[in-house]
């Protein structure tokens, strides 16, 4: 069908004045940077929390500076109480999973890059896009507010299992308004994510410039597009789950609270609910969530790699996209593997176990594509590529743990041990973070017109890579000894023996955290002092590199963009822009 004239998403001329331009801007680029800034703040908050927790685990009677000031009840003059440990653990999980890992790779880079990569002037619904960010921000503020209210943040973990999360203040410190605010914060995040996903889907389908067939979309765009579908369906189920939880807490309903609960010798006024219902609804979202986090990472890495290995990925766009679609679909069938020992019907355990193992097939295909694309390539080891390779290595290591946790028989020993903690930090935590770093170093010149410092970047990578393994591989290993997670102190006889290992992990974690300040410094310093970037510093081929750095308000200065090639036209030093009519060099 012939290309049709439709209106580009320029709804108005470039806004003037600071507030319209940078604060309440409808420009997807500004919104993307706002999201990234939010995540950057969130990630350092979350990291600080993990520091405090690690210190407490290794040196239980350490007086941690500033903590006493932050929470006089939770940590009287810096000495942490068990409940405060759990509160920090809850907020670490919540902030990292939602406001960092879900927000940065998807909403951050996606917002900035997706419209440019498809050749659009903005998202399909710019005002909706702006509101998504501000709703996310409200959610983040609500989450942080739990730190300042008297009874502190909730202690029920980021999974907020009912009835602990549902019965109210009687269940423990932070289970009053802390848990309410937590629930409302997640409701906000759900709404924002749904609006964002809607925007991504429509933009990808309806705003592609002439010649940008689906087969020519960059793999990062594919990642965000598939991810948007997964978020759309998954968050649509988390939203009612959180609403019902809040209703149980504030409305007196009993969806998740069974009859005859007695807490502190008080018979609870609830009847007939089911904790398992909450777990089912939560994990119906919760497992797709980990793929919501990792799919954009797949996309970013698959987008960054070809640029630096100077050849297309094996199998072109088809194989990787197939893998991503397969992973996205399977992710809805496997949530029960979080519930093998939860009292779920043991027969369902088998039903959930098989697809959970099957999901390794598309994952393995993706990994093979990344690894074997290096075969006879010309690798240029710039920082973005190093982080991409780091991502692949971490994803392999993390994926391996999946074999153990996917089988009910082995999971029944390893469930709720530090093996699980190590596993998900590798797969969804650090893989996604490494991909985000790759994206940062790769797109920073485009976003700010200056290149990040290469030397600092390399130091950042090497230290992070090694230390990440020191922390989380050790967690895997201690998991085999049955080290139980979510313990604020190691008191059991078999746990005490693991204190040395924990000291090692703590030291490594502190260094790992310190390393991230190199990155923070690099981001801020390069913004002002970094070397000026050309329009296309990496010799890449996709549309974002076919405009100025940073791009103008409508992305291409009103030029008609026409696409002739796929996104991976690399052959050694030769490469062809997607927009250039010249002959293909990679034959993709």
């Amino acid at each position: 069908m012939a290309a049709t004239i439709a209106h580009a998403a320029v709804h108005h001329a470039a806004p003037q004045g600071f507030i319209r331009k940078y604060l309440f801007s409808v420009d997807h680029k500004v919104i993307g940077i706002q999201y990234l800034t939010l995540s950057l703040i969130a990630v350092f908050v979350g990291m600080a929390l993990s520091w405090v927790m690690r210190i407490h685990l290794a040196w239980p009677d350490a007086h941690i500076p500033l903590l006493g000031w932050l929470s006089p009840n939770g940590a009287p003059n810096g000495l942490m109480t068990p409940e405060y440990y759990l509160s920090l653990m809850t907020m670490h999980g919540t902030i990292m999973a939602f406001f960092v890992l879900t927000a940065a790779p998807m909403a951050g880079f996606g917002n900035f890059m997706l419209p440019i990569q498809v050749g659009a002037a903005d998202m399909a619904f710019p005002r909706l896009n702006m509101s998504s960010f501000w709703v996310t921000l409200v959610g983040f503020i609500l989450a942080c507010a739990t730190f300042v209210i008297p009874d502190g943040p909730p202690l029920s973990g980021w999974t907020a299992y009912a009835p602990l999360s549902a019965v109210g203040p009687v269940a423990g410190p932070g289970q009053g308004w802390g848990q309410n605010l937590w629930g409302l914060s997640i409701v906000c995040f759900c709404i924002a994510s749904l609006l964002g996903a809607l925007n991504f889907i429509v933009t990808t389908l309806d705003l592609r410039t002439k010649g940008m067939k689906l087969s020519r979309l960059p793999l990062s765009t594919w990642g965000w597009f598939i991810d948007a579908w997964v978020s759309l369906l998954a968050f649509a189920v988390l939203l009612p789950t959180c609403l019902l939880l809040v209703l149980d807490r504030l409305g007196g309903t009993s969806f998740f609270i069974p009859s005859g609960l007695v807490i502190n010798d008080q018979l609870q006024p609830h009847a007939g609910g089911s904790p398992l219902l909450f777990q089912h609804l939560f994990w119906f979202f919760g497992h797709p969530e980990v793929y919501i986090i990792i799919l954009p990472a797949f996309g970013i890495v698959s987008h960054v790699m070809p640029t630096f290995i100077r050849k297309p990925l094996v199998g072109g766009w088809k194989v990787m996209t197939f893998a991503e679609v397969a992973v996205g679909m399977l992710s809805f069938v496997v949530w029960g593997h979080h519930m093998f020992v939860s009292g779920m019907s043991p027969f369902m355990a088998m039903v959930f176990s098989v697809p959970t193992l099957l999901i390794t097939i598309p994952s393995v295909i993706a990994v093979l594509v990344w690894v074997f694309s290096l075969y006879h390539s010309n690798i240029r080891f710039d920082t973005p590529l190093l982080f991409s390779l780091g991502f692949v290595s971490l994803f392999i290591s993390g994926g391996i743990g999946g074999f153990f946790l996917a089988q009910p028989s082995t999971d029944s020993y390893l469930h709720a041990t530090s093996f699980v903690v190590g596993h998900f930090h590798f797969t969804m935590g650090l893989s996604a973070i490494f991909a985000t770093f790759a994206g940062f170093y790769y797109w920073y010149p485009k976003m700010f017109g200056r290149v990040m410092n290469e030397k600092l970047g390399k130091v950042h990578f090497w230290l992070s890579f090694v230390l990440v393994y020191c922390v989380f591989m050790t967690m895997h290993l201690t998991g085999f000894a049955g080290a139980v997670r979510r313990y604020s102190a190691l008191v059991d006889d078999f746990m005490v023996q693991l204190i040395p290992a924990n000291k090692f992990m703590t030291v490594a974690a502190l260094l790992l955290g310190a390393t991230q300040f190199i990155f923070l410094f690099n981001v801020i310093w390069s913004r002002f002092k970094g070397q000026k970037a050309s329009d296309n510093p990496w010799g890449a081929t996709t549309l974002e590199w076919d405009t100025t750095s940073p791009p103008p308000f409508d992305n291409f200065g009103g030029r008609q963009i026409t696409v002739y090639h796929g996104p991976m036209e690399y052959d050694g030093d030769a490469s062809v822009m997607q927009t250039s009519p010249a002959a293909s060099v990679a034959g993709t």
Partner: protein
Amino acid sequence: MSQSAVASVSHHEVLMEPSPYSMDKKKLGMWVFIVSDACTFAAFLFAYGYMRVGAPVWGTPFGFSSIANGMIMTAVLLSSSLSMLAAVRASQVGEKASSNKWLAVTMLLGTIFAGLHLREWYKLIAEGWRLFYNPTGGAAQFGAAFFTVTGLHLTHVVTGVIALAFVARGYKQGCYDESHVETAGLYWHFVDLVWMFVFPLMYLMNAH
């Protein structure tokens, strides 16, 4: 489709790939929203089903008067869908006046539906039903499920009426066109569609 897309063109035009659905972005966006909203309703109804399956005694509190009321509400909502259709069709042949007239009818019917619904609620509350209490001695979950699910649907209806009011105003003033009316219509039909599940599951399954 290009014609209507051109109709919504702003001052700035470039060549683009055709939409795979040959559908403008507002309408596609509404469809995507409908998909996710359908899942949200589904989750509520599944929770209700789970409660009910797990309950030793459930009890079916609705007498015929409630069912009759429900039937009237269904009729009202269905006819509002038809008037919405009329509004969309009128707008597509450019009959602005009649389109606005039908939009007004739709809003009126929507309001009547909400009124009937609230009357039902007041009746139940007067009988002592609460989110956490069942005066007939059955499972307390009934109140919880009923008020939550129908409450969510009622919210959609009210939002719909308000949205229609905005669209109608914009359409009259000329800053919106028939594609906005059609998109609003999609949402309205979806609210109707949800009711087609809520009515049998929340009312009929609880009739004694």
